[in-house]
């Protein structure tokens, strides 16, 4: 499969009154044509910041790419000027945001908002753009599109607004679609519809998707590969099967363990103790160590490198070092993994 995006040693920082917040600290991953990569991790782990960096949407000047490369079709996005970025955004890379209630301009007609990108990137005339906008609205299954196109966002329900956002993102057939928690703000049935819609469209257009979510159930449903982020780093990355059935990082264990499933009662839920570290002064060793039940002394001294588990599976934990004692996932997590395996990864939806 063709590599479409290659992120190398990405570091993103924010200058704040308190000092430099190192929100993303050395992230590496790549994305192939037609695949879906999910990024998971708890709040504040740097998922959104990473994707904003990919889009060149960091809030300038206080947010900036400190180090690293974002290679998209041999161009380094991190080094492009604002003008060059504007040509790529919406055309090659586009984005869907978390909250459909706020991500549409309340004073602009829905149609105009869809047409904007078409007119800019594909040099369409107004009538052509309108035609295409209608098509798009139908594609995202908005009934009565001819009427709807003239309406304002507040006349749409949350789910419909998110469809509009999807339509805007898809307008110019982007090569990469980044979806930052596109379903978090929606109720469950609508979530499923939006996800189906995205899968459907991906099949038709063969675009690549980066999908950010808190919800591991969604991951199992849509993703080909998963990257787990913690405190600005990717701590484990692999195919869905590898991450779900053979997780190596204690943080991933924690995530899997805290995921509610239908056939487990809640008392078994495993919670990761403590809070994420302060990214103003990241700790010297492994950022997860203070919350890690299996932390070793080395974790407080040095950051673990990425250990290779298989060709597609890597994890950054000293537990994979040959010198480390052999540790298995905690029992409750292991049980969870086994039950998922027996359900073939579907019981969790």
């Amino acid at each position, binding site marked *: 499969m063709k590599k479409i995006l290659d992120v190398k040693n990405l570091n993103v920082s924010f200058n704040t*009154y308190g000092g430099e917040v190192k929100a993303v600290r050395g992230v590496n991953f790549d994305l192939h044509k037609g695949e879906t990569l999910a990024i998971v991790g708890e709040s504040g782990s740097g998922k959104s910041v990473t994707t904003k960096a990919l889009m060149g949407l960091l809030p300038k000047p206080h947010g900036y790419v400190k180090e690293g490369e974002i290679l998209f079709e041999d161009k380094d996005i991190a080094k492009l000027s604002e003008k060059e970025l504007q040509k790529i955004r919406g055309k090659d890379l586009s984005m869907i945001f978390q909250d459909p209630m706020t991500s549409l301009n309340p004073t602009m007609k829905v149609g105009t908002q869809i047409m904007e990108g078409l007119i800019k990137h594909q040099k369409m005339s107004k009538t052509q753009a309108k035609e295409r906008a209608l098509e798009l609205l139908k594609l995202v299954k908005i009934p009565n599109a001819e009427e709807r196109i003239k309406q304002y966002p507040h006349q749409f329900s949350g789910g419909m607004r998110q469809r509009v956002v999807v339509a805007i993102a898809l307008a110019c057939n982007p090569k990469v679609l980044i979806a930052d928690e596109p379903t978090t703000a929606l109720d469950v049935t609508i979530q499923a519809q939006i996800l189906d819609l995205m899968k459907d469209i991906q099949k038709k257009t063969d675009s690549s998707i980066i999908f950010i979510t808190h919800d591991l159930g969604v991951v199992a449903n849509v993703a080909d590969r998963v990257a787990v982020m913690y405190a600005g780093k990717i701590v484990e990355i692999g195919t869905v099967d590898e991450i779900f059935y053979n997780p190596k990082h204690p943080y991933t264990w924690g995530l899997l363990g805290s995921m509610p499933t239908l056939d487990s009662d809640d008392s078994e839920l495993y919670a990761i*103790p*403590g809070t994420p570290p302060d990214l103003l002064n990241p700790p010297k060793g492994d950022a997860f160590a203070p*919350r890690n039940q299996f932390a*070793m002394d080395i974790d*407080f001294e040095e950051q673990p490198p990425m250990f290779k588990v298989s060709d597609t599976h890597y994890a950054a934990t000293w537990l994979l070092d040959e010198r480390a004692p052999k540790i298995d996932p905690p029992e409750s997590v292991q049980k969870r993994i086994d039950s998922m395996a027996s359900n073939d990864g579907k019981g969790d939806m």
Partner: protein
Amino acid sequence: MADDNKKNLDHLFVLTEDNQQSNEKINRPVTTFLQDAFRSLRRNVAAMISLVVLIIIIVMAAFGGQMNEYDSTTQNLSWAKMPPKVQGLENIGWLGLDGTDSETIEASTVEAAKERGLARFKNDEEHITFDVKSEGDGTEDSAKVVATHDVYASKDMEDTYFWFGTDGLGRDLWTRTWEGTRISLFIAFLAAAIDLVIGVAYGGISGYYGGRADNVMQRIIEIITGIPNLVVLILMIIIMGSGIVSISLALAITGWTGMARIVRGEVLKLKNQEFVLASRTLGAPNGRIISRHLIPNVASLIIINTMFTIPSAIFFEAFLSFIGLGLQPPTASLGTLIDDGFKSLTTYPHMLIFPAILISVIMIAFNLLGDGLRDAFDPKMRK
């Protein structure tokens, strides 16, 4: 070297015992809301400077009038409209504190200009100096002469100093300005205090009891705010006559609704919080809950609001004087002084300058301090 490193680290590959304690380190030191607010207020340079300036002005308003030998009411027409003169500053020309009046005169020739200069200053030749700026060529207004009249010398008062000059009735403006400031500040504080009492009581009761009482009280406020303040203010003064108390009352009557709204909103929010419910279950009477629990919690909002009421009261007092509804002479306030100053603005600008600067500085300082307090106490704005 790399091998060495590896060896040294080997012993670290053991599970850390009792790891949970390290979580404690993550938490930041706890500071109370008030400490935080005051710290951020202290860091606000503009607000701090304003505070100092206001303290100085208040001290001057209290004692400034006694700093020279003149009082604010004795009239002496032979001293009328004398320009300001200050010991030590009289030789710094651009300050205009040298006790002279000057005028730039344009005429066709220098002679003609000088003649008009003499006429302008009552032909007091001995004490007039001319500074020829442009010789002129006989055409209209081509010659330009600055005539300067040493007013103090002409009255044989070289050793007298009126720091801010005198007014049309020969009264010392330094004394009058500070006494006027005192009156203006007094009216503003009084109005703010009345405002506060009515507003807090009304808003507190309305919010606390809620239900139908609240409903009725809110409709009343709605109607009152529908009436323009200006109208109420003017009618009140016309009826009550204008004195310190009536002006303060009129200002308070137009101003309390804002306070009432803020207090009501906050009380409604706080009412259902746990500590209030707790003391209620313990049987504390309503009045006590209001004064012990609710008021302290809305205190910061009240203070901030008051910080904006005061300058607006100062402005309206001056405004009333300006439209002829101000204090009656000989009482001075900043407003009446400014009103007087305007009457001879073109010829004797000094009468306007000082009270105008003072009122502006007071207004700016109160607004900046109010902004600073709001930023400090409004948790939404705090990072």
